[in-house]
């Protein structure tokens, strides 16, 4: 635990040195905020139209979004999809940014990312063809390879590394200004062992969350935290809840729960300051996250 204390102390020193940064960020009135919200395209599509609908267009920039669910529900798939979709060029209504992918569990697979990237490239070129039928090849064709090169991938093996990396992110992003999304898959894994002092863990997690909130605001990017779920004994029965406890859950702006409903995967907005609670089905296909197939059929019939 000495290690983490040392890190904490250093962080606190760093923070207290430049309090002006903190004040400067928040000097904005509501009118400015509204203007900014409207003028800037601040959503990253999930490639699932139903999910985008309930999210108001996609995962929003400047905010921290936590996504959780049982193993195998598609958290990593959604993470990879977002890392690819953030690159969508502005003429397709995207951000044209790059992605940082922080893999703490080792679930990120290069070949899967390639598969999703290639499907994305196909979709984009199809869109181009549809849009400019006569202006063929006006833009250099994007390739799956280029898409993968725009993802900065970090593999983390301990919580000290994780804290160090998050401290370093601000510097990294100031060198790579086109980063528009930071994905941590998963935020919980290394914090679920080796902590006897739970108060310390809460404090470290709180610091980490603050850093991420600040990063999202200052650098105008989306922070997506994938989290595990755990069973907790509450009121006489076992219930599913997000890991890392209640204090942590207050740090995230938005929270999406992924769950099974029969044989369909669903996403549910559990917490958001501006979206109403809603659920939407989605599916994980070989091309990535897409609308749920059975749902499509149903809407066609109607």
């Amino acid at each position: 635990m000495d290690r983490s204390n040392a890190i904490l102390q250093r962080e606190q020193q760093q923070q207290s040195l430049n309090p002006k940064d903190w004040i400067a960020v928040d000097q904005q009135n509501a009118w400015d905020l509204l203007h900014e919200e409207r003028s800037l395209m601040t959503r990253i599509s999930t490639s699932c139209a139903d999910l985008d609908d309930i999210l108001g267009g996609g995962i929003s920039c400047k905010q921290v979004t936590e996504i959780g669910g049982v193993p195998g529900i598609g958290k990593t798939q959604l993470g990879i999809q977002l890392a690819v979709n953030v690159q969508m060029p502005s003429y397709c209504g995207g951000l044209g940014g790059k992605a940082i992918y922080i893999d703490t569990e080792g679930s990120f697979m290069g070949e899967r990312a390639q598969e999703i990237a290639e499907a994305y490239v196909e979709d984009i070129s199809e869109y181009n063809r549809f849009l400019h039928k006569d202006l063929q090849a006006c833009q250099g064709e994007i390739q799956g390879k280029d898409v993968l090169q725009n993802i900065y991938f970090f593999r983390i093996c301990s919580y000290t590394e994780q804290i160090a990396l998050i401290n370093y992110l601000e510097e990294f992003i100031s060198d790579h200004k086109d980063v528009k999304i930071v994905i941590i898959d998963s935020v919980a894994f290394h914090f679920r062992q080796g902590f006897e002092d739970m108060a310390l863990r809460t404090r470290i997690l709180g610091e980490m969350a603050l850093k991420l909130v600040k990063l999202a605001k200052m650098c105008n990017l989306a922070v997506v935290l994938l989290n595990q779920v755990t069973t907790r004994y509450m009121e006489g029965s076992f219930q599913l809840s997000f890991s890392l406890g209640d204090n942590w859950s207050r740090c995230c702006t938005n929270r999406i729960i992924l769950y099974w409903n029969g044989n369909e995967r669903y996403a549910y907005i559990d917490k958001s300051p501006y979206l109403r609670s809603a659920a939407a089905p989605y599916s994980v296909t070989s091309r990535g996250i897409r609308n749920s197939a059975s749902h499509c059929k149903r809407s066609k019939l109607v």
Partner: protein
Amino acid sequence: MSQIQSEPSTLRPAFMTPQKLLPDEKCSLGCPILDCCMGGGIPLQLHNRNRGRKWFRQNPILPSTLPPRPTPTLPRRPVESFLENSKTRLPVRVIVIDSMAALFRAEFDNTASDLIRRSSLFFKISGKLKEFAKRFNLVVLVTNQVMDVVDSGEGANEIRIGNLNGMYSSGRRISPALGLSWANCVNSRLFLSKDEYEGGSVGGGESGSQSRGTRRRLHVVFAPHLPGLSCEFVIRREGVLGVNR
């Protein structure tokens, strides 16, 4: 300690692009049909978890890539120092733990404090194993046991994990031992089922002579790189072979 207090620049982590991860290295299962089902084999650096029978222990080990005999010194010394100072002719590329459940199911009580201690240990162990997988570029395969699902009401066992809506083997509804917290520790999970069938009644099968038989299947419960599919397999003298039907 010294690492933390030194200049932050030394802590600066290096990034790579996913391009560097390609192509994913795979450890063959020794059978083209099974390999096809697994997308080419078990990927290195991925922490696998496999529930069912022991045959998998020998099988993913390719004779050409691994020490000819399992080294008897392995259990007596810590695995980490063994891996670091390995003097074997060929590098160790597979770690098999058979089985994780056997120890944990016996040693711990069903009390809240024991369960918390147990799940904390799971994360510690899997964190370490994942670190090995990355540092030494190897496959980690962990077998688990299954248990019967007793009540069909709600309970911790009833949470659906992965592609299978209920697991069945030998005609019984089962669920993996060690629960949700261990499921959070692994990257992918395979499930092996075994069912007895009457020769004439089920499927085509060989006619007449064999009245009863067993049908084994390998299911992908979850994996970041595989769709939820399954494949039939048989165990022969030569090893484990996939069946193409």
